[in-house]
């Protein structure tokens, strides 16, 4: 038997997103119904590229009405309902195979991934009812967060495939939408004050707008009044309620709620993850450990529980590591951070504490070797991150190695070129740095940064005429006048020149942040092995010139004082770690 699938969508001003949505789904359905509720952009035109069945529907402030209108236009046996900001993902034909194997099921909940950050693969999973038999029994109700009414829960099944991927809107638009939603919801709430779903939605909207105190009563009501039959809503309501209590500073209440709920839902991963976070914040690290471990044990929870990806793996491991460190259990912390990185290499944050542990325990050379052997440096993101960490920890030699030994990972990557260039120069490899600068094209956004590095390299090499002429070129781009100004002044200071080309005035104040950056980079160079071993009189002059320039402003002087205080304190700390307290340097 060949069932036909109708895609039913309602849209308004979705030109930006619609094509992506339709492109992904067009081969999965038999017909596409698009109900336009009054777009003023290209939406309808785009829609017509995919289907002839584009209807316009006069907006009456009621989503359900519009959706039900779309259902009326459909001719298929099954309805797939999508929003324009969703993209369907999965094996081709996965929709159809769901239907073919539906048995007596009449509706499916599909997983919806709601991303928190795309780059690190953190997302929340919700299940939404989007695929159902096209019969009169399945109709939309509710004005805003319209729901398909479910006549018989026994006939609803959960699907793991395909996935609906939600595309986050720009924050401004999200807020606009939320405000609009909120108005309609409040209106609906006046008419129907006991509807737990409305409580839920109102709570979520207020929470997302950062008004925890408004959100709290609604979420509390929703959690209380929704039963386990509506776990699809009750589970996220519980999560949001915990989050809301936590952000309103009521962590003890949040924790009691976690403890209480954990008895009812012993496999609800996210609950244990949130509980772990709460214990962690209370500095009850042993308890936190227990809860995070339990979250990991739970794994991905059964589908009805709303789930944040990673709360059973990389996020939990990351927090485990933090707690272990706080408890002084370094080796276990190390293992936990490693597990976090291994389970999601696109989530780079565990690399930071892991790096610090390795550096402390093994020293820079072995730290590098470890990261390399474990394969982290074969991952471009982790490799760049590790290089930057080495650089910031004053081990520019290892920073250089990270990038130079893994150049195959970064074909034609300008960010890579620029970073490597910087590490070259501040490890004393001036010529190689200059070469790398040349690989960055004049049209690139990174061109001026590369030029700046080249000029510094030339100064450190003592090639002042060339440095000066490059700096003058840099001056010609208005955006890089600050850099040019500092560099030209520094060159004059180093050469003891007094008159020759005086750069036109620019706001001194604007150059201070740049000066600080230059000086910080200089400090990294000062700690590099290359400089320590062979020294460089020009580098000394460069450092002195930067100090002179910094000293000419109050902010700069202050910055220098802070820098020297920091240097002194770092040294004092090392000193007392090695020689114990009570000797001259720390007899206060």
């Amino acid at each position, binding site marked *: 038997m060949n069932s036909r699938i109708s895609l039913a969508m309602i849209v308004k001003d979705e030109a930006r997103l619609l094509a992506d949505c339709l492109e992904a789904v067009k081969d999965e359905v038999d017909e596409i119904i698009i109900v336009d509720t009054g777009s003023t952009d290209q939406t309808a035109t785009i829609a017509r590229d995919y289907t002839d069945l584009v209807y316009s529907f006069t907006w009456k402030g009621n989503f359900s009405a519009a959706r039900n209108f779309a259902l009326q236009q459909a001719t298929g046996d099954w309805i797939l309902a999508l929003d324009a900001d969703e993209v369907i993902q999965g094996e081709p034909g996965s929709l159809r195979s769901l239907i073919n194997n539906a048995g007596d099921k009449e509706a499916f909940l599909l997983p919806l991934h709601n991303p928190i950050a795309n780059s690190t693969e953190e997302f929340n999973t919700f299940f939404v009812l989007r695929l159902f038999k096209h019969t009169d029994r399945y109709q939309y109700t509710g004005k805003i967060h319209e729901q398909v009414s479910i006549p018989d829960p026994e006939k609803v099944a959960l699907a793991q495939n395909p996935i609906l991927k939600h595309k986050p809107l720009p924050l401004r638009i999200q807020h606009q939408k939320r405000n609009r939603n909120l108005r309609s919801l409040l209106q609906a709430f006046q008419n129907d004050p006991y509807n737990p779903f409305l409580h839920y939605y109102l709570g979520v909207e207020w929470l997302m707008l950062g008004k925890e105190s408004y959100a709290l009563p609604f979420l509390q009501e929703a959690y209380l009044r929704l039963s386990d039959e509506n776990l699809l809503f009750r589970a996220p309501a519980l999560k949001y309620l915990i989050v809301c209590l936590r952000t309103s500073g009521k962590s003890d209440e949040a924790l009691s709620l976690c403890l209480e709920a954990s008895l009812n839902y012993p496999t609800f991963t996210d609950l244990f993850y949130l509980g772990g976070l709460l214990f962690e914040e209370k500095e009850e690290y042993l308890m936190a450990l227990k809860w995070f471990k339990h979250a990991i044990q739970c794994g991905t929870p059964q589908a009805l529980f709303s789930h944040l990806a990673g709360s059973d793996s990389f996020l939990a491991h990351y927090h485990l590591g933090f707690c272990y460190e706080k408890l002084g259990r370094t080796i276990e912390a190390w293992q936990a951070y490693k597990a976090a990185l291994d389970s999601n290499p696109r989530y780079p944050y565990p690399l930071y504490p892991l790096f610090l542990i390795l550096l402390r325990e093994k020293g820079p050379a072995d730290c590098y070797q470890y990261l390399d052997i474990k394969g982290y440096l074969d991952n471009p993101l982790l490799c760049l991150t590790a290089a930057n960490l080495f650089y910031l920890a004053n081990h520019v030699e290892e920073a250089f190695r990270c990038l130079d030994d893994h150049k195959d990972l970064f074909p034609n990557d300008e960010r890579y070129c620029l970073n490597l260039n910087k590490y070259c120069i501040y490890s004393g490899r001036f010529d190689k740095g200059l070469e790398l600068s040349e690989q960055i094209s004049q049209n690139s956004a990174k061109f001026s940064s590369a030029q700046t590095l080249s000029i510094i390299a030339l100064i450190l090499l003592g090639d002042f005429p060339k440095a000066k002429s490059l700096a003058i070129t840099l001056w010609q781009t208005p955006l890089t006048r600050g850099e040019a100004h500092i560099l030209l002044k520094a060159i004059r200071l180093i050469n003891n020149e007094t008159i020759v080309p005086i750069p036109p005035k620019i706001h001194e104040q604007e150059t201070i942040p740049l000066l600080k950056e230059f000086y910080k980079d200089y400090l990294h160079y000062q700690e590099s092995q290359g400089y320590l071993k062979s020294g460089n009189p020009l580098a000394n002059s460069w450092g002195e010139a930067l100090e002179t320039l910094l000293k000419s402003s109050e902010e700069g002087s202050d910055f220098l*004082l802070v820098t020297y205080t920091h240097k002194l304190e770092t040294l004092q700390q090392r000193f007392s770690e090695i020689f114990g307290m009570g000797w001259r340097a720390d007899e206060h």
Partner: protein
Amino acid sequence: MANKISLCMIVKNEADNLSRCLRSISGLVDEIIVVDTGSTDLTCDIAQKYGANVQHFLWNDNFSDARNFSLDNARGDWILFLDADEEISPSSRDVLSQLTEQEDIEGYFVKIINYLGGQGWTETVPDLVFRLFRNKQEYRFRGAIHEQIADVILGRNPQARYQIAEKFTILHHGYLDDIIRVKDKKQRNISLIEKELAKEPANPLLQFHYGVELFRAERYAEAAQIFIQAATNIDPNTIYLPKLLRYLVIAQQSSGQLKRALHSAEIALKLFPNYADLYYYVGLLQQDLNHYSQARDAFLQALSMPEQPPQYASFGGIRGFRSYYCLAQLAELFLDEEEALNYYLLCLRDNPNFTKALDSIIRILKPAQEPDYAKECLEKVCDFCTPEANRLIGELYYEQGAYSLALHYFERIDSLPLSQIKLKKAICLLQTRRYFEGLRLLEDFTPESPDYPLALLNRLFCFWLQDKPHKVSFLWKELHALGLEHNTENVLALFLRTQDESDPSPQIDFNADGMLLLLDILQRLVALQEIEGALFFLRAIAPDCLGEYSLQIAQIFIIYGQDIQALPFLKKVCEEKPASETHFQLGEVYFRLNKLKDAERHYQFALQLDPNSPRPYLRLMELYTASWQNIHQEAMRKFPGNSVFTQLAKGGLASYELKNKSSNDRER
């Protein structure tokens, strides 16, 4: 009624020592039993002269048999046992009869002071020995150890009571010889005790002595093992337990088990919390572990301990110069010269013969650079009234290259009996450009004198300084005629060259002797501020053989404040052989020259090469503090209205200012 006392001795070829021993005891004992085991010198005659009952005994490799043979012949109520190289102290004469009158005492542990030679000072090691006991048939020696008779007596008579006779003191002169002798026979002694241990494996006294023998044989790890066994299950009142524990600590330290030694010392201190020696060794151990502040605390503890009971056998100087000396060296390590000086002075006050302290004091005072200050400081604390003291201090100054100061003290000696002082005085005269007087002294040396060539050389040097080439070449010929070694000749030939820089004189390879002479000349020239002359000689040296002497050359320049001249040599050393110490030195030079970035770099590098030396840290802290203050002052000047900077001036680098204050307090 007076108890009769029998002195018992075992001797062999002790003619040199025996008189001293018998003289010290004469009139105190009722009979003297001397058992000779085969002397071939006048031992027996001397013994008879003092009225001894001399018996002969055929040595059978068993100390106990010989000793018991002497007891068999004794008729007194008490036995006093002495060795020929021992004597009793004069003050002991009065107490002996009181001791033997005590009715309820079976025997006494008496104090023995072992004399050790020292380098320039006398060291003594006190100890306790069991040498005075009642004469009874059943009290006989057993085994190899003197003290074993104490065990025997207790075995026979469990009610026996012993005491420590504090005022009765034996002086032992042949301690070092004994140690050497024991070393020669160490294997024999060890196997002797091993045999006895086989019979009584759990006897702690045997174990203790076995440990000591192993320790003397430098088998420290095994000794430590045995000491641990001996200390386990021992009665805490055992008289030698403190010594045993100290031995354990030292044995563990000597076998490199620093942490264990520290642990043992901590346990021992729980039993004997007033045992100064243990604190002292804790100090040494902490120092070896780079825990310097703990080390300092331990030495201070050792110094604060009360008079040590005799059974502690506390080493001389532990509560005095030894601990002061360690504290001074720690202070130097932490660049605190004021504190170091203080401790060196306390050290010297406790033991005026401990010249190492004086050396250090003079070194710290930098007499070559600041002669007046050095002189003033030293005269405040030391009294140079004897010619010997003047000579000593003069020589110390001479060794530090402070010629004018050395001369000052040499001139206070009326007669110069030793030609060596004469030569040194002459050199000092030349170095203060009193050529005429110097030459007169030098001309006193005749060809018979071993210092004649040096006198000639100095005359030549004097004329060279005055730019009198004829006299130089005359003296050169005279020196040449003495038939000098090839390298010396080469050095001398340099005096004949002209000091013209354009002169393409060939560079010469010198051997160690030649270089030594050259460095001497170099130092003399730099001391005279004749920098051009010094550089002239340096240019003559082939670069290859200059290499290993760069550090010495740099140091010569540094002693006389010629930092800029020292720089290239020090740099070369750092490049060729990077070491923490030399980088630190280079940092010091740059710091003095106010080249802060270079100084910082070399201190940082020194720190990286040896993170366990505190000095680079301290200097860097000083450097950062100085930089901070410079920036702050400039900011205050430029931006007088800025409240942040004014605020900082009050609080500032609070730690730094307090730190200075506290070190000033200490100086007061």
